[in-house]
């Protein structure tokens, strides 16, 4: 047996992994399998590229999602897939680490891309090291070749009408020693910054909380949203944690990123590296953000931003 397997918590992430797996299944001359939590998605995943869907049985009350590990591990032992991609959400990362331990397989955490060796049917997978400072390339020596893939690394797979595949039900999930005794949805304090086309980012160069308004005004004129660097959210609490960008925060792919007083530590830059255009304003000409920017203004943001707003107002009105 063989195959490319993908597992994610939700539909959106499953479609992204299906897109990553589709080409790979063709390269390896094998089929593509997705896991589904709900029967209603099984056919949908087939339409989006899966040849087979393994349907997970419903969880009992108080049973955590992670208790699916033994069932998936058993299936992987009997079917011996070539590749197993798992979404790098927090639950996904735990599930993947525990599966890898059970399967005695290597696992590439936070895989940002891979190259395929068709002959050897092997992957050379890339991931970040040292908080985004370096890129490590890993070639697994064990089966399955496992990786966790951060959400939004790949575009979702496109639907193809008329595709057929089979749906198989997995055995019941055994009871877990861990019991969920409470769950509260996170109160969303902010917009989904990953959806914004234009992002204005507040860095530590912004001196006072009330000056965040300057960035807001710039974002309004541009039709964008406001984000920040990690300390602005975690230490100063000027903006909600959902909008800080970086390796441990949100990763964004906007058309335009404008850094306002952002120094550009590597951990931050990792979160914005997929922006189409990066524009930075900082008074320190040695700030690392200028190395990562397409356009840079060396100047005091308190003078530059108001002028920029004014110029944009007249330029964008025309």
């Amino acid at each position: 047996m063989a195959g490319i397997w993908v597992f994610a918590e939700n539909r959106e992430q499953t479609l992204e992994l299906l897109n990553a797996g589709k080409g790979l299944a063709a390269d390896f001359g094998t089929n593509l399998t997705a896991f589904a939590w709900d029967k209603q998605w099984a056919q949908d995943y087939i339409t989006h590229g899966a040849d087979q869907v393994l349907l997970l049985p419903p969880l009992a009350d108080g049973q955590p999602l992670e208790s699916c590990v033994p069932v998936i591990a058993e299936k992987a032992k009997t079917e011996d897939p070539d590749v197993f991609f798992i979404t790098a959400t927090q639950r996904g990362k735990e599930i993947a680490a525990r599966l890898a331990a059970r399967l005695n397989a290597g696992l590439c955490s936070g895989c940002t891309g891979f190259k395929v060796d068709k002959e050897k049917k092997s992957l050379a997978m890339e991931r970040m090291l040292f908080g985004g400072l370096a890129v490590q390339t890993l070639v697994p020596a064990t089966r399955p070749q496992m990786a966790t893939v951060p959400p939004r690394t790949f575009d979702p797979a496109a639907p193809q009408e008329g595709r057929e595949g089979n749906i198989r039900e997995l055995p019941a999930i055994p009871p877990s020693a861990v019991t969920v005794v409470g769950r509260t949805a996170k109160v969303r304090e902010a917009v989904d910054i990953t959806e914004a086309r234009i992002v204005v980012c507040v860095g530590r160069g912004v001196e006072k909380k009330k000056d965040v308004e300057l960035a807001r005004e710039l974002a309004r004129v541009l039709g964008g949203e406001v984000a920040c660097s990690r300390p602005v959210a975690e230490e100063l609490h000027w903006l909600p944690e959902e909008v800080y960008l970086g390796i441990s925060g949100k990763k964004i792919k906007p058309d335009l990123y404008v850094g306002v007083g952002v120094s550009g530590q590597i951990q931050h830059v990792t979160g914005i590296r997929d922006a189409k255009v990066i524009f930075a304003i900082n008074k320190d000409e040695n700030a690392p953000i200028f190395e990562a920017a397409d356009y840079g203004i060396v100047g005091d943001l308190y003078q530059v931003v108001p002028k920029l707003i004014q110029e944009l107002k007249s330029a964008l009105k025309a």
Partner: protein
Amino acid sequence: MLKVIACFKWVMDEADIKVDTGSRRLILDRVGYKISLYDRNAIEEAARLQEQHGAGVVAMTVAPPTAKQCLKDALSRGPDKACFVNDPSLVDLEPAQTTAILAAAIEALGDFDLIICGEGSSDLYTQQVGPALAEKLEIPCATYVNKLTYMEGEKRIIAERKLDDCMEVVSMPLPALVTVLPDINTPRIPTLKQVLAASRKPIDNITLDALGVACEGCMQTTGILAATMERRRLRFGAGEEDIRAIIGALLKEGVIA
């Protein structure tokens, strides 16, 4: 008595890493080492259980013998004892190898109730060792914990997990493992007295031979290179002309309209 093991890793300080821009090689010859950032939260949480519940705390690490100075650093943060699994070969370990060695060392240690790990290490940040270790030891685990409560008398812990879309509270019987987030506590800065006391605390030196664990890697690292980003790096001044030039360029690129 509640017996707690806090695992920690002695890592390169990434702030000391320099890059050779031409070859993209990392220059590591002048780097300092530190206790991995989130592992300090793991040790602190163990120290909190020691203070509030009289827990006995062992700090455990897997490293080459040259990392010896990490022991005093760890012990000054509260633990009663250190377990130092060391061998010259224990460098650049994969998570699977670290996990196998820790599992063997913990089994050799025998009795424990709770293992606390950081959510990930600041060098590799694979976030695998905690949950993989729980799996190898066949004990329950809770990852990404930002609040931990020990239910004395019930031999149980309640852990609050901070997940992508929700907060989840779980209850599990001991022995168990948790991985902790940086916001669970504020790691102490050891006082001079604590630093001095640390040098009198016991250290178990455990060799790889004594554990009898073979640990081959599962992955081959074929390259480590500095991350690059192809950007135009155009510099402008702060004058109105400069600002207009940038706006013109952004309009032309079609990223603003």
